């Protein structure tokens, strides 16, 4: 049981470092878009009376 778990962990670690780099980059693009949008409208809020 413990052995099987160890194996599963090793497998996911290999995946971790290799196969989802594009996903990470993509979601950070999404994150950046959200931050830029939010900050722009917040700037409008601060600028206006």
């Amino acid at each position, binding site marked *: 049981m413990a052995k099987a778990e160890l194996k*599963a962990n090793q*497998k*996911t670690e290999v995946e971790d470092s290799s*196969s*989802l*780099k*594009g*996903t990470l*980059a*993509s*979601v950070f693009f*999404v994150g950046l*878009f*959200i931050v830029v*949008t*939010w900050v722009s*409208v*917040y700037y*409008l*809020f601060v600028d*206006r009376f």
Partner: protein
Amino acid sequence: MINTAAEKIKVDPRDAKLSMAHFFVAFAALAIGGLMGLLQTLVRSGKFELPLGIGYYQLLTVHGIMMGLILTTFFIMGFQYAAVSRTAGTHSNAARRTGWIGFWLMTIGTAMAATMVLLNEASVLYTFYAPLKAHWIFYLGLTFVVVGSWVDGAAQIMTYAKWRKNNPGKPSPLLSFMAVINTVLWIVATLGVASTVLFQLLPWSLGWVDTVDVLVSRTLFWYFGHPLVYFWLLPAYMCWYAIIPKIIGGKIFSDSLARMSFIMFLLFSIPVGFHHQLTEPGIDPAWKFIQVILTFMVVIPSLMTAFSLFATFERYGRSKGAKGLFGWFKVLPWNDARFTVPFIGMASFIPAGAGGIVNASNQMDQVVHNTIWVTGHFHLTAATSVVLTFFGISYWLVPHLTGRKLTKSMNKLAIIQGWVWFIGMVFMSGAMHIEGLLGGPRRSAFSTYGGSSQAAEWIPYQIAQAVGGSILFLGIILVLIIFINLAFFAPKGEEEFPVGEAEQSEAAAPMVFENWKLWLGITAVLILFAYTIPFIDIIQNAPPGSKGFKTW
């Protein structure tokens, strides 16, 4: 995998008939609502006037009800009914009968409400804010739609419960689980709107009581109004999480995470209605802010969804040998409408979600509240992410249900439809967002506001909206052509109902996700926490009630 062999690959024809009945109403609503939408954008461009003394706001009411309430509710119920039948097994006769009763209740209700709107007795828009007072038949019709949807949803719950009983200790099929979450979300949410309609608006419009408490009514409406949009969104998420992976030939990134995000939607999409009421009097700002915090919680499952979807795509692409950071993106099946059309919807959810976070950001709402930015926002969420996914679903589900095939030429037309929609929406929603930031109000006919220079700046954007609206109307015509083809004329054949599978290494989903007592309990606690004190405040400090007005 004895289980998959037992699983019905094809939706039973008796279930298919009920789903198709829903779709006929849904696409009829799309046709009517779409024409109204086109006319509105033309009127607001200032270059066109409605003939025969038809009122702009009457059209707007029709558009909102057809698109926001009828198209969505009927499509969702029809889709989920089929998805449960496909994954949890054919509905029993009792469940099917229940579904039909629900369908007819909803349809009768729709006809009642629509008649009153056409007679100009209910030009109150689809939000029907008191003290605008519509004809009582309008409110009764809406009640039928809501109650009908409960009965309709009960059919799905019955079949899900039967599956659970026959498969003790096993996690239910993902699509059935998701459908039931959404139905439960809907039932809990509609309690709010049902309360205001049954206990406030109906007796008031019938003349049994003279006045109505406006803020109570609005608060009950928005208790419903935000989960309403998640009720629209979750079927799209069902397709993105559990169907798209199969269409592209990949695997579901994580079945458990998908379930967890759906649970989070159930918990956090309801106790957040105040973020639609941020600029209104009579509600304590501290409670507004508490609900803003809860609103932000509901962003988290969408962040998870974004990751899961990209991960599904990347894994699939890399399995096809794609290299580099974004090589996987190119190998996706762009020639398959079943993928491309919902994909455009997914991509639209990036700006849609970002705009939503702005809307919910407490005092920042003052920049955009009730400006046409908001209209632009929900034309990205509901009218792009959600409906393009619905169209994408119907492109395989309708032929699956009618025993026909999506032909190559229809597939091509469907892809064109998706891109036409995208282009139209860039114009329309883009212009709405900008005009909104400049202060242009939503829900308004063309006006120069007494020659105001600010209002003059809005007009070019209104013309852009009319251009976008016209392109979108072309998109609707294409959808209708494809729908009618798939329902009646496409060649006979077998079209697959794709259902994704999780990665093999993944363990079965924890059974805690199926613990309805737990999740409904937490949902109730969160709702009571977010609403009890402010709601008592609103009732205790209520001003004299309002008489009804018919100002149209």
